[in-house]
């Protein structure tokens, strides 16, 4: 029956092309929405995900990476004394203002890390090394910041919070969800420059656990024993940050709505054309019933049509998506498509086309084979 379905699709090429366009449109839109969403979420938690560390300790009720509040840095002693902790490092993330070359200012996100260990620092360098910020008023700026802070090169100076700081390195692939440029510097300098932090405060402590201890268990013990701070496993804090941006900004809802609309638009287009095709071949389906086909045999034809349409439409949509990735890159956007996402969208396409085929099933069930004798 699959071959009959294929023949029906190939017979009326114009109609099939319209159906396929509907699926391709829906699949491409779903891919675009998911790809952009995942790209945004990747940037939201990129520093957490790239920083080696099992546990993130934050101020009480911290809701995400970008807006965590400072807390006394001596808490690191309590963290180090906690059972199962191997080592711990402090990290500052705060907001500041950079003066632009041609005048005006731009908001930036400062990340202050220990240049000896590099924990929390840039993980991919275009020029320089993460430890280069160690001995002075030095900074590393990500290459993606050019649009916001103007052209720069190693050796240039930039004024941040009225301090002249020298660029000693250029990092790669560090973008924030807020689109604010990320500027790396030493922990001590970040305490000085980020006036809101205070000299005895930190924003995060990143801890690693001893072998044999699970981060989840150590986090639970920390929550029970350490006063006025919160602790999360790396994965939990990453998820919490992504969820914050997804829910609090409404970005997740907006993407979800577009995906749902795409799904239904695709379903209606496919549903309408499969239904029209069923109506057109009603007499032939009646003939099939008369010569001994069961309803199931005819459902096989209808659902094979849906399967072929979904598969070809999906493949075309995927190819268009992969070809369009370059456009996102040129526009400085992070676009993420994983194999898991690609498989999920394929399943969504199948559900979309199979649901559409159900419009026709009722019609088939009610075909009276006696109709074939009416000429």
């Amino acid at each position: 029956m699959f071959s009959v379905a294929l023949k029906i699709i190939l017979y009326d090429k114009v109609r099939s092309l319209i159906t396929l366009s509907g699926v391709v449109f829906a699949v491409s839109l779903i891919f675009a929405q998911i790809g952009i969403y995942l790209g945004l979420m990747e940037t939201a938690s990129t520093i957490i995900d790239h920083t080696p560390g099992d546990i993130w300790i934050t101020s009480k009720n911290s809701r995400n990476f970008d807006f965590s509040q400072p807390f006394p840095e001596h808490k690191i002693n309590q963290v180090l004394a906690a059972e199962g902790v191997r080592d711990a490092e402090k990290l500052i993330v705060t907001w500041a203002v950079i003066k632009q070359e041609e005048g005006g200012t731009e908001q930036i996100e400062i990340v202050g890390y220990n240049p000896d260990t590099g924990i929390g620092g840039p993980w991919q360098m275009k020029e320089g090394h993460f430890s280069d910020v160690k001995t002075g008023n030095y900074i590393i700026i990500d290459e993606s910041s050019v649009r916001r802070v103007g052209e720069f090169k190693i050796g240039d100076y930039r004024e941040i919070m009225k301090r002249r700081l020298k660029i000693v390195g250029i990092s790669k692939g560090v973008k924030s969800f807020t689109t604010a440029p990320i500027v790396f510097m030493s922990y001590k300098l970040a305490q000085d420059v980020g006036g809101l932090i205070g000299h005895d405060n930190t924003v995060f402590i990143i801890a690693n656990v001893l072998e044999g201890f699970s981060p989840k268990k150590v986090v639970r013990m920390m929550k029970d024993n350490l006063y006025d701070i919160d602790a999360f496993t790396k994965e939990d804090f990453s998820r919490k940050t992504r969820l914050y941006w997804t829910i609090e900004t409404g970005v997740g809802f907006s993407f979800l709505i577009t995906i749902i609309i795409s799904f239904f638009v695709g379903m209606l287009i496919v549903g309408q054309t499969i239904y029209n095709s069923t109506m057109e071949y009603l007499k032939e389906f009646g003939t099939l019933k008369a010569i001994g086909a069961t309803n199931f045999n005819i459902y096989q034809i209808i659902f094979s049509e849906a399967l072929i349409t979904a598969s070809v439409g999906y493949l075309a949509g995927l190819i268009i998506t992969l070809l369009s990735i370059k456009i996102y890159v040129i526009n400085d956007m992070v676009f993420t498509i994983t194999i898991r996402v690609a498989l999920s969208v394929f399943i969504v396409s199948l559900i979309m086309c199979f649901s559409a085929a159900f419009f026709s099933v009722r019609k088939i069930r009610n075909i009276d084979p006696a109709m074939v004798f009416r000429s």
Partner: protein
Amino acid sequence: MEQAVQVENLVKIYRENKVEVIAVDGVSFSISKGEVIGILGPSGSGKTTLLSMMGCILRPTQGSIKIFNREVTNLGENELPFVRRKFFGFIFQGFNLFPPLTVLENVKLPLELRDVPRQEAEKLSLRLLEKVGLKERVHFLPRDLSGGEKQRVAIARALAGNPSIILADEPTGNLDHKSGRLVIETLRELVTKNNACAVIVTHDNRIFQSLDRAFYIEDGKLRE
């Protein structure tokens, strides 16, 4: 000779808007293997209704139909497709070929329903198409055939599953005299060769001499 179909006191009443129309009224007859019989009558006389009931497509209001001595009027909806598949081959006035399928694929359809292996189905279909004189047209689409050729494809399709009973509804209705005669001759020849039987419903008196027996139906009542 073995009886293929036995019809006894068959009645079909259509009810619409509280109005009852008796389409078939107490019809009884039987058909043996190898026979080609005709049911003649004017439009609206009940010919097609009778044929639909014999082919297990329409349920009678009353009466009995036995196919090779097996009562079929009491079978469930799920069983009827299998009875149709096993015993019957249908030929329709409008040919009812699948437009997107080639001649060969149309003939193969009943064999696919019977789960006949692909190669065997192809061989059988080609043999039948050769018998109906369409060997050169196997890869044509129905739209590229004449009316007579389409009906010969329909005959090949009806015979593809090697059915014991062929039911033909006005098989010459859309054909000119010459094509009509060729179709009936082909059908007659293949029925005899396959030791099947055929019931031809028609109001075409010209095919009268090709029949073994003929019945006349009017107002739902049948007479030989």
